[in-house]
């Protein structure tokens, strides 16, 4: 067995073992969807950081920096600012009534099953397609490491993800995320000094990179409007995506959330800075790559020794898996809890709920790979929607969620209009609008305007429905 294959096999064995052991700690639905709401700051922060860090950080981000230069790096500032906003403003209000899913929050705050249904459908569609693209990337990694056909790699990747996510739910995801975060940190920390040594040290790297790409440290390589709106997309995406919001319910109290968020944001910021410097090394070592997306795979395969290169590829896979497993939880709960148990078959017995929950994840995890194997969703469509994922989530949920805990007058009609209008505008802007402005800005603005204006034009919400979010109280988990 080759060294990379052995490194990967060891990595998968540990992930699977953690998932299996988590089964014992999953006794009811609250355990299954939000880890019982008992996570401490370390596990809560680690799963938040691992979920935030996707393959995009290791491949896409480094690719943009390779092409556009260091000015793109300043977009990073929006991430710690976003998490600070979450800890200071959103979390204290959002967690007053603990729910199992984000659509359940929407029903509670906006006193409407219909609003919950709309939220669940948006989550389900966007998430399933996003998972599909990640599975394609997983198949490609399996092809590089094990030499198996990409299609078999996609199936294997899905089976491993489903094996521990279906069995252990959120508890399994949290602990595998913590392990995967360690792999990501190790991959980046060990790769950086070796890559920098190849260019004769850090100070020569900074001069060489400017020699190879004279504009690397200059403003203007990206339009200012695009930098600003990309920063806005990162900011809004960090506070609004369901897989991150649900982690606030999983941590046990506000003190834990504040500490967990600090831990997560520190790790995410440092990991990104490490990856940025790796991008500079890639510019010097491989100045003629046809696409920036090849920068990290080139560093992993051509610069690092085999074991470390495999570690780097494992880090990319870990980033991918830790994001996809969290999305499986979100999409599975949208299907089984929000749509099936809430709208279609509310009389389902408690004993059956756990099976329905598991079936939900199995279905949303299997559909993407089945679609891919039948030739649906490959190519540009998937990439198109992957790029839109954060913008869609931000345009759908930021205003109704953040605004919902800050403004009593917001109504269910306003929330529904904000979600539908935000999604529609984002799609239309991506298809027809100028590329210099990220679609998140028009999507967010339209969502906000509709939420505000429609709320004022419709009857105010019943005081009892919104009271829990505006009066200090502490309640348990309410499914």
């Amino acid at each position: 067995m080759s060294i990379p294959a052995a490194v990967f096999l060891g990595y998968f064995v540990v992930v699977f073992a953690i998932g299996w052991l988590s089964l014992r700690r999953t006794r009811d639905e609250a355990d299954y969807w939000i880890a019982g709401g008992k996570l401490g700051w370390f596990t809560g922060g680690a799963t938040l950081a691992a979920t935030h860090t996707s393959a995009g950080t290791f491949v896409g981000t480094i690719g943009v920096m390779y092409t556009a230069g260091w000015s793109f790096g300043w977009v990073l500032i929006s991430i710690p600012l976003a998490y600070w906003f979450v800890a200071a403003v959103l979390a204290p209000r959002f967690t007053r009534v603990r729910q199992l899913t984000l659509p359940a929050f929407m029903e509670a705050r906006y006193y409407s099953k219909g609003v919950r249904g709309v939220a669940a459908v948006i989550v389900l569609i966007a998430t399933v397609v996003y998972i599909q693209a990640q599975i394609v990337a997983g198949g490609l990694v399996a092809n590089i490491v094990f030499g198996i056909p990409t299609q078999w790699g996609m199936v294997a990747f899905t089976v491993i993800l489903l094996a521990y996510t279906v069995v252990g739910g959120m508890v399994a995801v949290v602990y595998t995320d913590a392990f995967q975060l360690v792999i990501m940190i190790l991959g980046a920390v060990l790769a950086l000094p070796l890559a920098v040594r190849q260019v004769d040290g850090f100070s020569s790297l900074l001069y060489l990179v400017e020699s190879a790409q004279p504009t690397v440290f200059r403003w203007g390589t990206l339009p200012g409007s695009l930098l600003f709106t990309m920063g806005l997309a990162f900011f809004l995406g960090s506070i609004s995506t369901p897989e991150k919001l649900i982690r606030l319910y999983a941590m046990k109290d506000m003190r834990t959330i504040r500490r967990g968020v600090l831990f997560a944001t520190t790790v995410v910021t440092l990991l990104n800075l490490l990856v940025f410097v790796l991008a500079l090394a890639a510019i010097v070592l491989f100045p003629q790559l046809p696409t920036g997306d090849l920068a990290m795979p080139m560093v992993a395969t051509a610069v690092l020794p085999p074991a470390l290169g495999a570690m780097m590829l494992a880090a990319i896979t870990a980033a991918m898996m830790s994001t996809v497993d969290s999305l499986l939880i979100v999409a599975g709960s949208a299907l089984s809890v929000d749509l099936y148990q809430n709208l279609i078959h509310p009389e389902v017995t408690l004993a059956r709920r756990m099976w329905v929950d598991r079936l939900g994840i199995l279905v949303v995890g299997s559909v993407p790979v089945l679609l891919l194997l039948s030739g649906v969703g490959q190519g540009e469509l998937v990439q198109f929607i992957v790029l839109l994922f954060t913008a869609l989530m931000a345009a759908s949920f930021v205003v109704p969620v953040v605004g919902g805990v800050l403004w009593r007058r917001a109504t269910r009609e306003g929330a529904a209009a904000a979600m539908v209008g935000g999604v529609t505008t984002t799609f239309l802007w991506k298809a027809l609008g100028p590329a210099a402005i990220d679609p998140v800005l028009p999507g967010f603005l339209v969502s906000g305007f509709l939420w505000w204006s429609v709320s004022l034009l419709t009857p105010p919400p019943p005081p009892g429905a919104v009271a829990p979010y505006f009066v200090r109280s502490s309640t348990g988990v309410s499914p």
Partner: protein
Amino acid sequence: MNGAVHGALDQAVDGAVTGPGFMFWGLFVACGAVLVAYLVWMLWTERR
């Protein structure tokens, strides 16, 4: 690869390369400042 690196380094030092400056180091300082500010806010919140 190191030979090529040395050649490019000599060329870079001789040429009009100004070095990274604020744009590069400023990002590290700015990220550090936000994280320290968060820490101070957290400790202040918990002491209230």
